[in-house]
């Protein structure tokens, strides 16, 4: 089979699996978040943490719950990482330095999983399992809870209540993330992913050299790493490591895991707003963006412009031979299009255009299809922006799903659109202007700027993938990226929940022929164009000096 046929087959299989899972998973999630019944285990949990599961929270209370839990999580994780040497099963590893502990704690709580460290030589098993993996579940469930609260903002009328965060969080973990992770971890083990608690083994290789092989509970972490669009690898090499992602089949499964919840959430959305077409429309806009980026990345990598790849005849640098160029490009596109950040190849080694495309994927705001929950609410915010412009053009006060977009709503939309560029550009600008931070760069010239931009795009968008080449474990990057991740995640969450609160208070206007239809292809196109234009106009100057200059060289 030619590489092209294999690549296309892989894409076709991925789409087929996603299509098969779309309806059952989407409907299941809608039931999870609308059901009035509590499971026994959930009730027990509510009693332990003293939460009244029947309480309906105002948007502000919902926000405080999210922030409270997240702040506690950061503190807890920070302490755990700092004190790692006192924990059992730490493999003799020391506690983390303050800046790295801060960076890692914020990173995992903000669903980013940026890793300024190499997992196998930094984290003991307790840190991995009780610290990082727990946040993989919790941060993913937080994102989904916020998305559901936003959907409620669009379905409720005349209320300031958005549901109960603790219930949404608990259900997200117990009824969605845990069962899928459990099953998929076993499947991954069957596929060759390791799962053990053994110490490092010294083996003598065929060549006679001695090699240290690190084991660990990988499969259990691998499933939620991808399912929760977290991306933090057990190993430094992430999904390029054969213990995390041994073969083409696990690679395909991991790809499915990355995309399945963000994709299926659009179904949940359609079901919950009682107009499935709205869900299809959002999905289509996401798919258009994902597809266009996939074509760009794959084309750039397969055609491998540039002197060296042309001479070698391929662009295999930084890619695993197990996966070939096509599967690497597909994985890179999925991982940057969602806020996952797991990698099966090194993005820094991509061509200028390919690297620029995956970077732009993140700069779009992680909406194609985005992180679990965050992709959906990000897309809703951009839909409201598109509605605002398009709505005026049809001669009505703009409205989305019957909710009018007035000064309060558009203020929140404008602020949330400002948040990510703010964290990204300011952080990157400071990094680019100081000699000390530039010392971290592997390359100079536009490729070096790409390394900086990529790091902050990854942080501010809670992606977590690294461009490689940047030695980020220095105080500036650890601190600044930590801030970028927190701002990108939680400022946005506060703003979208405030927006949901404002939308829920309204009495929706019934749709008429004079209402802008938000489910037709025309609007889907406008929605996608709005996403691209907003990101393009914001980041074009920076991109021109980084990846574009590389690509055109």
């Amino acid at each position, binding site marked *: 089979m030619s590489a092209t046929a294999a690549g296309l087959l892989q894409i076709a299989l991925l789409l087929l699996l996603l299509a098969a899972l779309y309806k059952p998973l989407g409907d299941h999630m809608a039931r999870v978040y609308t059901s009035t019944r509590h499971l026994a285990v959930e009730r027990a949990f509510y009693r332990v943490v003293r939460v009244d599961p029947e309480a309906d929270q105002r948007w502000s209370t919902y926000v405080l719950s999210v922030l409270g839990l997240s702040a506690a999580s950061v503190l807890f994780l920070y302490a755990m990482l700092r004190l790692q040497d006192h924990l059992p099963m730490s493999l003799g590893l020391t506690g983390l330095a303050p800046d790295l502990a801060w960076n890692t704690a914020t990173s995992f709580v903000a669903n980013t999983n940026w890793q300024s460290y190499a997992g196998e030589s930094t984290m003991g098993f307790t840190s991995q399992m009780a610290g990082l993996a727990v946040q993989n579940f919790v941060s993913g469930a937080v994102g989904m809870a916020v998305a559901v609260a936003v959907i409620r903002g669009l379905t409720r009328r005349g209320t300031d209540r958005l549901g109960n965060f603790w219930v949404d969080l608990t259900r997200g973990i117990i009824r969605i993330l845990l069962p899928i992770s459990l099953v998929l971890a076993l499947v991954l083990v069957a596929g060759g992913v390791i799962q053990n608690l053994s110490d490092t083994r010294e083996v003598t290789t065929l060549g006679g050299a001695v090699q240290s092989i690190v084991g660990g509970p990988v499969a259990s972490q691998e499933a939620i790493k991808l399912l929760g669009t977290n991306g933090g690898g057990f190993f430094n090499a992430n999904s390029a490591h054969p213990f995390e992602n041994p073969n083409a089949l696990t690679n395909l499964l991991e790809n499915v895991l990355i995309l399945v919840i963000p994709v299926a959430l659009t179904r949940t959305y359609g079901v919950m707003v009682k107009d499935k077409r709205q869900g299809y429309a959002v999905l289509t806009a996401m798919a258009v963006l994902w597809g266009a980026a996939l074509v760009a990345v794959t084309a750039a990598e397969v055609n491998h412009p540039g002197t060296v790849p042309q001479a070698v005849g391929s662009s295999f640098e930084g890619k695993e031979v197990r996966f070939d160029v096509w599967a690497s490009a597909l994985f890179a596109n999925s991982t940057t299009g969602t806020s996952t950040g797991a990698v099966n190849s090194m993005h820094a080694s991509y061509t200028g255009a390919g690297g620029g495309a995956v970077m732009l994927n993140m700069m779009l705001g992680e909406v194609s299809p985005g992180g679990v929950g965050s992709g959906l609410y990000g897309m809703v915010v951009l839909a409201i*922006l598109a509605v*605002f*412009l*398009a*709505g*005026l*053009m*049809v*001669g*009505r*006060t703009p409205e989305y799903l*019957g909710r009018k*977009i*007035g*000064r309060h709503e*558009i*203020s929140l*939309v*404008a602020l949330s*659109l*400002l948040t990510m*560029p703010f964290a990204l*550009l*300011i952080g*990157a*600008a*400071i990094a*680019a*202007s100081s000699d000390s931070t530039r010392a971290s760069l592997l390359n100079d*010239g536009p490729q070096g*700027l790409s390394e900086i931009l990529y790091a902050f795009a990854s942080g501010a968008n809670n992606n977590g993938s690294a461009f490689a080449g940047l030695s980020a474990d220095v105080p500036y990057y650890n601190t600044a990226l930590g801030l970028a991740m927190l701002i990108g995640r939680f400022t946005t969450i506060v703003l979208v929940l405030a927006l949901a609160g404002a939308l829920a208070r*309204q*009495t*929706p*206007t*019934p749709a*008429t*022929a*004079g*209402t*802008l*239809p938000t489910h*037709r292809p*025309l609007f889907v196109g*406008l929605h996608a*164009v709005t996403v691209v*234009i907003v990101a*393009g*106009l*914001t*980041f*074009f*100057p*920076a991109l*021109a*000096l980084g990846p*574009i*200059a590389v690509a*055109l*060289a």
Partner: protein
Amino acid sequence: MSGLGSERSEGKQKTVTFVQAPAPEATAPRAGAGLFDPRLLVSSLPEAIGKLDPRRMVRSPVMFVVEIGAVFTTVLAITDPSTFSWWITVWLWLTVVFANLAEAVAEGRGRAQAATLRATKQETPARRLSGGVDAREEVVSSSDLTLGDLVVVEAGEVIPGDGDVVEGVASVDESAITGESAPVIRESGGDRSAVTGGTKVLSDRIVVKITAKPGESFVDRMIAMVEGAARQKTPNEIALNILLAGLTIVFLLAVVTLQPFAGYSGELQSMVVLVALLVCLIPTTIGALLSAIGIAGMDRLVQRNVLAMSGRAVEAAGDVTVLLLDKTGTITFGNRQAVELLPADGVEETALADAAQLASLADQTPEGRSVVVLAKKRYGLRERHTGELPGATFVEFTAQTRMSGVDVADGHQVRKGAAGAVLAWVREHGGRPHLAVDDVVDGVAAAGGTPLVVAELRSGAARILGVIHLADVVKNGMRDRFDELRAMGIRTVMVTGDNPVTARAIADQAGVDDFLAEAEPEDKMALIKREQAGGRLVAMTGDGTNDAPALAQADVGVAMNSGTSAAKEAGNMVDLDSDPTKLIEIVEIGKQLLITRGALTTFSIANDVAKYFAIIPAMFAAVYPQLDVLNIMRLATPQSAILSAVIFNALVIVALIPLALRGVRHRPLSAAAMLQRNALVYGLGGIVVPFIGIKLVDLVVSAIPGIG
């Protein structure tokens, strides 16, 4: 308006205006581009420069940023002069001036109208009555009148202030306000009691109770409105301003952080270039034209003789989803007309026509006249005059007899009237009405018409001749108009005092979506509240005092100028022509206002694509020559590229002033169709046009020494 209220106004002056078919093109001329006079640009220039005052500029955040940038580059051009920085500086200032010019031109057009109005506001002597209607008069100045004062106005005098007629009837020339030269009747009591200061009494004597405080009269408000002095930003305008401010901050961020990236890349940029880039990126086109669009929207209303009390109401008009229209005068002509004659068995149709005409000769009501007209048009019966029938006695219609007719000298008698009355008359004279007549009468009633039975007494024998079918006649073009509204997503509800059967028949005939029959003012209020509870916006017209609560409750309440002060006070618009069909135009103007804003915002943002392609390669040509691939316009030099983008950015404002003032053409299309059209024209057009425009400017600019 209740059915009662609407009947009251029938047959009076107002109906004359109603007769005009409300076909879309037959209404008041649209404020086309033709009304935009380029000379206005020049004459408004001094004012535009006066508006550079930063305290005024700060109201438009986008243009305020441009002004700060212009000040900044001016300083730089003085401290470090170069041809390039001076050119940029001049064009940045021009960008701000052009924006102010747009506003000044829009205001200038309003001011011309205000000047005309102000002429009516001269101080006039007022004959004030102190201590009640019968007390003695004293002459005071109109500006000394206060609320509740009673003044006497006689033929030839100017009414000194807004008020209600409390005594007497007079014909009044309101042409100063409405532009309509035909005098109108104003009388005490009822729905036609309101008079406006500055209008002239042509006959008779009235006593007016002043209802407006000095300086707050109708004309005062009208002047403030057309001059834009009372203009407050409307909700959508505020929302749009917030979005524009947000975009401005995003671009500020992009430009400010570009310098460190440029420094990293080894080519720090001059401040002049960064300011130029910022100004090109921020949405100056819409920022410059936003207030002009708002002023022009109000202006378009004034040109159609509608006075909006707030811009908010105009915007709300665009959002209206339910129109409450009074049947009488709006959907139908103000009165019933004979539409057909139904002869009884064995009676010749012409005989019936002849009798019907005879019985109606003395009947001067519109219904009576319509019988004569029908007899002439359909049966070719020449209209006879009362003088042609010597010795004939005419029987007037009275509420007791409920019929009218004529007794000719030879003993031949003809009667027409309500079925019951005429049948009784026939029986009284020994006739035996055929049972089939009842069926015909019921049939006419069921079809929504009013049956009038015609009978005669000839040679001592009384018999029924037939039935005249009187019907409400729906105005031409109404069905098309309602279809258009439906396509735009607006539901029309006909409000009438008629019974449900009649109402349904007219509703079907006119093509309205729904009707409210036997409507009392409370029913109308309840209907509005019900629609609003469902999230719909309601517009209505009204003129009576009993309409006032509903007018106040409706999102868009258009009071007729002929109506009462209470109605005018309660509504948020006044139609000086007192034409209820104007509501449809008001909705269109409201939509047009929003469409224009949306289209120019889209255009403005889409323009940025080309500007990036012009400026970014130019900025980094030295350090990354490969970026020249992005210079797809092949602009001459880096300087000419940047300057061309700045000049295009300024010129496009001037080029779009006529569009901003005229408004984007509104077509009665569904939202989906309209979006497709406007997204194509202003979105795609907004991307393409600047590529061409910047290239053209560059061809000229590159000839400048030191630039090209």
